[in-house]
């Protein structure tokens, strides 16, 4: 039962987001360097961290799938990666807005974390055509898990390499990068992080519940000997 616990989880998420937004706009002090623009930090960075953790989680689920052969883990892996890609879109857009506000350009190559994230995003964007190109569902699940594990190992390597490639002369970083946050900012940041993490978990659970419901419908349809309905997704694994 995937829907179990979804209601309290979503209520917790709503409360957390409400609290965090209130803290951002009514509690956290203004940044000395960046002023009001710095408020984007409380949205952009938690989204990025949660997305990256989500990718790693997808890789862990993939390992479970490979070891157990149980396709349920593949569904978890797929949804985790899918949700993190969506969060990744939000990361890149908010990052671009922050860059435009800070330096006047919608994209800069000088910000190593944003560039690393773009590369990771591009890597996981190939997950969909990759799954789509493999027709046999069992093989698709296995190969997708290998992809997820490989990409998971790739993430830290990529961040390391990009950071090292940074010119040491003029590093541009978004003002309040994790070090040196005053107390109120750190507290606000942590609450925002918890809120975004809760949102991710809630949406993943919601997605899995929807998939499970769809799977139960298929099962019912089969049991009733009703004519089959076409339109099964080629990519998304089924949950039943």
């Amino acid at each position, binding site marked *: 039962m995937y829907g179990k616990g979804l209601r309290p989880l979503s209520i917790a998420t709503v409360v957390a987001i409400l609290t965090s937004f209130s803290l951002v706009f*009514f*509690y956290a*002090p203004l940044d000395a360097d960046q002023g009001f*623009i710095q408020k984007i930090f409380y949205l952009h960075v938690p989204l990025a961290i949660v997305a990256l953790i989500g990718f790693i989680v997808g890789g862990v689920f993939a390992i479970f799938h490979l070891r157990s052969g149980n396709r349920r883990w593949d569904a978890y892996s797929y949804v985790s990666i899918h949700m993190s890609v969506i969060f990744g879109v939000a990361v890149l857009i908010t990052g671009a*807005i*922050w860059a435009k*506000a800070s330096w006047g350009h919608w994209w800069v190559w000088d910000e190593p974390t944003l560039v690393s994230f773009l590369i990771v995003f591009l890597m996981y964007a190939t997950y969909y055509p990759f799954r789509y190109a493999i027709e046999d569902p069992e093989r698709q699940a296995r190969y997708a898990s290998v992809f997820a594990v490989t990409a998971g190992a790739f993430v830290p390597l990529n961040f390391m390499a990009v950071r090292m490639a940074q010119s040491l002369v003029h590093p541009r970083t978004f003002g309040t990068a994790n070090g040196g946050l005053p107390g109120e900012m750190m507290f606000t940041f942590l609450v925002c992080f918890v809120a975004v993490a809760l949102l991710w978990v809630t949406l993943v659970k919601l997605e899995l519940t929807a998939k499970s419901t769809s799977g139960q*419908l298929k099962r019912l349809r089969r049991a*009733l000997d009703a004519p089959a309905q076409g339109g099964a997704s080629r990519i998304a694994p089924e949950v039943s």
Partner: protein
Amino acid sequence: MIGLLLAATPALPLDEAGKYVAGAYIVFLVLIVIYVAIMASKLQRMEKELRDLASFAEQGRAGTPGREAEDVPIDVEAQPAAVSDRNLTPSEAAAGRPDHARGSADE
């Protein structure tokens, strides 16, 4: 508590910076709403399919193919699921169904 919060509120600067910050948070909101919309359409599709299956199951129990079920009760759980014999080919019907796990419910 509210008083403390309000007292600490810095005056919102409605200049250039405000627009960018608002833009970022709006993007976040819009993405969530788009997701809700996608989920809503999935739910709609599932409701329709469930409705179709329910009327399909009712037809089976009524025994007359093609009879439309007029009123489908909203609470589908009241109708126990039944394995219908309607789709048997003549040879299968003659041979009987060995793995008839659930008998058709007699209402």
